[in-house]
């Protein structure tokens, strides 16, 4: 799958490319308005990461161009502005999601997964991974075909892990994903342990492949 990163901050763009690129994703990166326009006319992408403040023009005009030409690329706005007006305008213009800088790369990856899933499986909302079968809309999980009940947060965690396969997820990233923007109001994220522990326990009881690994000192990893 192809991702286009439109971001003028070179270092940040390179980090995103590094993090996101794997056997599943291929990333392309442009840093200004003009080359972004050229790219979107020439190719189509599964997901476009769009910075709103670009040299040579407003990022929102790129979004408008995409929608005017009925391009189906998923768009996630990544902005340093973090203003509600921008967010609302972007979503009204047809962006699929909005992520304010600074963000965890894991959060970005999970959002991309979610956007692509929504775009591609309009009718099929089941993610399957070996013995796991996840219904995104019904928010249910079946392991080996047998339903396993999860709390809302455990389900969110599971999706977050699946969206970040084989990557180490820090406690902070997990807390931020679960509590949203306000996680950094607190210094103690011990509840993350509890949720992960419960999720692990439930999955283990259903005899899953033991994908969740604890990485000493840094966090967790969904290893497959």
């Amino acid at each position, binding site marked *: 799958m192809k991702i286009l990163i439109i971001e003028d*901050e070179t*270092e*940040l763009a390179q*980090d*995103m490319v*590094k*993090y996101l690129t794997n056997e599943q994703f291929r990333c392309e990166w442009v840093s200004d308005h003009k080359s972004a326009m050229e790219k979107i006319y020439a190719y189509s992408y599964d997901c476009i990461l769009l910075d709103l403040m670009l040299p040579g023009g407003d990022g929102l005009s790129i979004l408008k161009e995409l929608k005017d030409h009925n391009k189906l690329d998923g768009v996630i706005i990544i902005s*340093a*502005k*973090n*203003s*509600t*007006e921008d967010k*609302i305008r972007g979503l009204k213009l047809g962006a699929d999601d909005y992520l304010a*800088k*600074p*963000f*965890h*790369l*894991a959060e970005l990856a999970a959002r991309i997964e979610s956007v692509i899933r929504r775009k591609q499986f309009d009718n099929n909302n089941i993610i399957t991974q070996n013995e796991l079968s996840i219904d995104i809309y019904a928010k249910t999980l079946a392991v080996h075909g047998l339903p396993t009940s999860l709390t809302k*947060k455990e389900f969110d965690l599971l999706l977050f892990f699946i969206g970040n396969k084989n*990557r*180490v997820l*820090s*406690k*902070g*990233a997990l807390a931020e994903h*679960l*509590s*949203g923007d*306000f*996680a*950094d*109001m*607190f*210094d*103690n994220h*011990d*509840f993350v342990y*509890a*949720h992960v522990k419960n999720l692990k326990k439930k999955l283990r009881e259903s005899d899953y492949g033991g994908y969740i690994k604890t*990485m*000493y*000192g*840094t*966090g967790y990893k969904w290893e497959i």
Partner: protein
Amino acid sequence: MTKLLDRPLKAFTIYSLVILLISIPVYVFVVDQIWVSELDENNWLTLEHTKKRLTSRAFTADDLEKINQIWGELQPGVSITKMDEPKLLQDSVYEVVRPNEYDSDDGEDRFRGLKSHLLINGESYQITIETNVEEADETLLAVAVVTFFFFVILIIGFILLNRRIAADSWRPFYQILSSLQSFDLTKDSVLHLPKTDIQEFQQLTQSLEQLVNKNISTYQQQKSFIENASHELQTPIALLKSKLDLLIQKKGLTPEIAQILSSIEAPLSRLTRINKNLLLLAKVENHQYTDQASLSVNQLIGSSLVLFEDYIYDKNLSVEHASEATLSVISNSFLLETLIHNLLSNAIRHTAVKGKVIIRLEGKTLIIANSGTHPLDEKQLFERFSALSNEKVSSGLGLAIIKEISKKYNWQVGYRFENGYHTLSVIF
């Protein structure tokens, strides 16, 4: 405190009172002098007339006796008395006070008299002419009454004139005063001062405008500085965060390095928070949240509690949430959400493990209380970076943001410490 215009009024009043008081004896003296000199002249005329008539006709001593008797009965002001020694004395003027024979209530009357001598038929006669003169104390009373009457008129005039002057020429001054009183550096970008054609006021207006404009521009610069600074900080913070995310992906991290990496997260997240809050403060000050909607406070509290449930559970806090009232307020959704999030997270953070948080909505007042040990300084509490606590996670801006948002919508924020609870209240 006296009003500016009352001060000269007082001085004028005292001055005119003194002058009028001095004028009373002066008037009395002058009037008395005029009276006396006029009566003396009148007496003299009567005397001359009487003398002439008496000498031109040859009256006998008996005639004179008779005339005097008739005069004495009809016109007691003039009398002729025969002198024993036949010599001519100088004319003399005298004053005499006698009781009033017709009106005993009137007390005494003052008379001005003229005494002269005359030779008729070789006999010496004395003629006295007396005229009733106004008594000095009666003059004094009359003058005093009239003076007092004019004094009252004068004071009424002063007050009315003072008002006219105040309304007229001092109007710009009071307009300037009210403009200054209603001016708020954090809200207004221009100071509107009235135009005036009075030189002093124009100078005052100009100086004030210069002073205020300088302040406004300094304030604007400071505000945009904070906004720009935190904007500029966003990118490096974002980079730090993404670098850290990449770094923990590396294989073969030693436990020691892993520990260091994970301990970077907390300060980084605090940095993010401070920066976000500074930006938020600057934006609230710059009136960048203009969208408004009617929002349910109850609903927001409910969703915030869900958001924070993990933290509440972690600290084993008991939350008492009793909302008797339902309350909707019209405000920006992000700001109201931020206010409630900050109030709640503040209460949760500052409560000791197993403590208690009370959330109550009474009428238009939202009360959030949490158990604590000693009262905090209310003055400093809402200041930026006031550092009342030394905990590492606080941005030091949470309550400042609450204050700023409340200020924007004129909500009242208060802090009390009672019965072992820190109690923050917002009256919407």
